Structure formats: C-alpha cells, structure tokens
C-alpha cells in the first residue's frame, strides 16, 4: 500500500467550502510527485450532497464521518472524532485549507496526537525525497521552507486560500465509506448559535470600477479626505485595510480582505497598505493594481502592476493636480 495523503474537506451548514477543492488539488499534486495516494474525509450531518461532490474527484476513497453532534461545528467534537479517526488510519500527511474553522481545531487535534501542524502554507517543495512546505513569515515580508522534524506519519499542514486552483482538482470516481460516529456526553463543552451577518451593508464595493484603498500609512483620520477626493476624481469609491476600520475611521463595509469584502475592480489604488495576505485575498483579482508605499520591500509590490516607492503625501496631491488639469482639458 502506498502512503496516504488525507484531505479534510470543510463544510458549513451542509455546504462544501469551495476552498476544500484547492486542498484536493494540492494533495493530488503532491501525490503525483511522491507516489502517495489521496483520500478525502468530511465531517457533518446530512451531507450526502457533499459526499457525492467529493466522490467525483480523483481519490482512492472518500470518508463521510457522520453524526448529529457534528451538525454544528464545535472544536470539541471535531477534535474528539478526528483524533480517533486519524489514530486508527495513520495517514502519512493530513492536508486542510487554512480556514477559520481549521485554525480553530487543527492545532489542538495535532497536539492531541503528539504532532504538529505547519499552518498557512502557500506551496510545497519535494526536494530529494524531502517534503517542505513554504509559508509566509513576518506578514509576507519573507518566505520560509519548513519541514517536519519527525519521519511521520500524521504530518499535518494547512494551505492558504488560493494557494492552489480548485478547478484544477482532477475528476474521477471515488468509493464512499460512511462512518457513523457518536460523541459521548460531556465532550462538547460549548454551545454554538446561528451564524449571522450584521445589518445589511450600506455600500457594495463590488459594483465599483475604481477603488482607492487606504491603509495605516494614511496616518490620521483627517487624511482620509484626500483619499476620498482621489476616489471621486476617478469616479470610484474609498475602501480600507482592516486597521482603518478597527480604528473606526471608516465603517466595516469599506473593509477589503478575508474578513471584509472581496472585490475585483478595474483599478485598485493601494495607499500605504503593506499587503498582508488577509488583505490581498480580497483584492488580488483587480485588473490593475497601483501601489504607493514608502517601503520598497512591502509585500504589496509583489502583486502590484504599477509601483511607486514614495511617501504617499508627496505623490497624491500632485497626482490630483495633474488629473484635474487633464480633466479640464488642459492637455
């Protein structure tokens, strides 16, 4: 039997989280290089549709781990059930998407098995028989190649959103094995309630063709007026990185990123935004990205089409002057 890569697919409210397919694609890619086989597991209750969808991927097996106590996610139940499942199966490698849910249970699960999780990898390398996971450090300023110190099994790693393409996951027909499990009383110590959204968003940034987004480099709330003026000149909207919304300088519905909106305007101008991954996932689909940042090493320049290394307060005023001239037909 070849070694196994087990993918833990994620579902919420009986819907497959699409990012799981990226993890399947990652596992298939690793399997090709290592000669290992891919299996997929999903936990939940009433998840037949998800099982079916996963069974249509190229994999040696799909495990559907079912229990009414898994209907709503709790870390307690997930750790309990998965510990037993993994201890029994001993896959060489367990791969998961780096979602909020996985962040919540995976470290605990690994430790319960005496193992570790390499979190938030953006890729992998297979060098002379050694498997390395590449992950960002220092908020994306550096990358690190990380290995497991032991020989396995039960290596665990999570992949960052969009590190692989979900539509690249190869199709096939995998047999489904359903496992009915029970979670003993007392294991689940928390009581989760409904998932909800705050009051409807006032602005829908996704409709905007041009976005001027400000980050902490804007320094003070009063400087937002300048960015707003620039946005107006472009016929677009102002948006922000998280710290600006955390500070209450702009409402939450202006926040772009993993915990805010995901947008893909024609033009995205980033003023004083460093380019942390949680911001980038929300805007990297923009057609053209212009970044103005005083730090030449800022990760935002890794995805920018046009970059300006400068103090934004030196650039934006003359830029608006020039734009006004052009608009007035001076050229």
């Amino acid at each position, binding site marked *: 039997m070849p070694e196994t890569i087990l993918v833990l697919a994620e579902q919420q409210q009986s819907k497959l989280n699409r990012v799981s397919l990226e993890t399947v694609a990652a596992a298939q890619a690793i399997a090709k290089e290592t000669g290992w086989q891919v299996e997929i597991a999903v936990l939940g209750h009433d998840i037949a549709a998800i099982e079916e969808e996963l069974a249509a991927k190229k994999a040696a097996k799909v495990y559907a781990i079912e229990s009414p106590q898994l209907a709503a996610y709790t870390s307690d139940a997930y750790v309990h059930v998965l510990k037993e499942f993994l201890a029994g199966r001993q896959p060489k490698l367990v791969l998961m998407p780096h979602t909020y849910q996985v962040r919540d249970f995976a*470290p605990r699960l690994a430790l319960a098995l005496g193992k570790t999780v390499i979190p938030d990898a953006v890729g992998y390398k297979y060098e002379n028989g050694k498997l390395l996971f590449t992950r960002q450090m220092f908020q994306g300023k550096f990358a690190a190649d990380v290995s497991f110190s032991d020989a396995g099994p039960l290596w665990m790693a999570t992949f960052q959103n969009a590190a692989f393409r979900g539509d690249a996951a190869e199709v096939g027909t995998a047999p489904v094995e359903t496992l009915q499990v029970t979670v003993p009383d007392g294991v689940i110590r928390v009581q989760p309630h409904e998932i909800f959204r705050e009051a409807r968003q006032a602005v829908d940034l996704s409709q905007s063709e041009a976005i001027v987004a400000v980050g902490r480099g804007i320094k003070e709330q009063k400087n937002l007026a300048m960015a707003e003026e620039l946005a107006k000149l472009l016929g677009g909207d102002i948006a922000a990185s998280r710290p600006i919304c955390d500070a209450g300088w702009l409402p939450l519905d202006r926040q772009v990123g993993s915990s*805010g909106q995901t947008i893909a305007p024609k*033009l995205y101008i980033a003023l004083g935004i460093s380019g942390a991954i949680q911001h980038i996932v929300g805007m990297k689909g923009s057609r053209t990205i212009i970044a103005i940042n005083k730090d030449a090493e800022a990760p935002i*320049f890794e995805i920018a089409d046009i970059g300006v290394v400068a103090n934004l307060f030196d650039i934006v005023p003359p830029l608006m002057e020039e*734009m006004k001239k052009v608009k007035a037909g001076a050229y």
Partner: protein
Amino acid sequence: MKILVCIKQVPQKDAPLKLNEAGTWIREDVPYEVNEPDAYALEEALQQKEKHGGEVVVITVGPPRSQQVLREALAKGADRAIHLADDSFVTLDAVSTARAIAVAIEGQSFDMIFTGLQSDDYGFAQTGVLLAELLGWPHATIIIGIEKTESGLRLKRELEAGQYQWMDMPLPCVLTIQSGINKLRYATLMGIKQARNKPLQQLTRTHLEGKLGTNLQTIERLYVPTKQKTTEMLQGSPTEIAKKLVDILRNELRVI
C-alpha cells in the same frame, strides 16, 4: 475574574527587516513592539477586570529585550507580569511556547487566558489553542466580543467574509482575540510610575528543564519571496511620477 494575557514582542510594523547571514532568521537589530492582537487581548482583559473585578497577569516567552512589552502592560494596568526569558526562546515553535507558558502558570488558577489570534512574526495562530489542549480547557478563536453570563461567557466569534456567530462557553477557557475587539488605551504617566512597583517575576530556561521537548517543525531556510507579477516601478520626482500615473490612468487604463 483572574485573567492571564499572553503577549509577544515582534519587530515594529514599519521596521526594515534583513536576513541574517545563514538565511535562517532576521537580523535582530531592529525596533520592536507588542504584537498588535496581543495589545487588544490585554485591553480586553483590563476592561473585563474593570467590569467584574479580579486580577490581570501578563506573560511573555522571549529574549531579555521582550521585558519591554511587560513593562508597558503593567503601565496600562496589568497587576503583575511573568517573563520567561532566554535568547533561545526566539526559535521556539508554537507547541514549545505553549508548554513553557503552561509550566510557568502551574498551580495558579486562572478563569480565562487570552492570547492574540496570531503573531506578526511566525503567524502560527496556534499558541492559545495549544495551551487550551495542554490545560484540558475549552477554547474559542478569533473572538471580537465577550460578555459574562451566569454560567460562563457569551462570545462573539468572527467568521469569514463578514459572518459572525455567538457561542456560549464555560469557564475556565482560553480565547484568542481579534484586533478591533475594543479601543486601545494609552498608558498614563501615573500608570508608568505605578508599574515600577508592580511584581515582575523572572523565570529562566532552567525552570523548564525537561518540560519543553524539541521543536516538531524546522525552518530550513528563510528568504525574500519571489514576485508573482512583473511590476512597473515608476521613478522620478513626485511631479514626474504624478504625470506618469496620469498618463497610465488616461491612456492605458482609460479611467479618466
């Protein structure tokens, strides 16, 4: 409520970072500050104490320089501090860090332990969750609201893409705190003065002898990431750059 807050010192956000010669870590001669979500975790603990009484204890695992973040926390209102100090702690993985904290607080019965949800340097996002497992306590992550109830806590969890969830949690528990949960306070002059007389317990590596284990993961190399796109970098005086940008906006992108 007796609350422990785990905080960490990380390079300042704007600090230019350089690789060391071996390409295994950064050069350490940079300015440092408290990890941002940890500052929110501390603020939350202070606010909970103001509402419900109790004690706020801060702990850090890090080299001698990291004592600074404990001093700042004491100045903001924490009651006492624990410093697990050793230069080698810079390279601890999350499991070892959690173990070190668990050993340091043995015998002290906390109601809650707060950590920031992740650190700006390693970005493991694991220490709090691992600590909960070591202690056998329940936990919850990415918390942006905490209310005390009869039986424990009612928590607001942030989920992805603008979703949230309420959740009931018994005590004791470990929570990892998200930035923005509250408004940070500044230390007052009075606070800074008072901090000098507050207890700061120093523990060294010898306190942990035989209890840490070895790192389960190894950083083989650290490097500047390769670019995903070719970026056109504009050079010149501000006016020249402004003119070039307008030319691009008008003639290439046709947005003005």
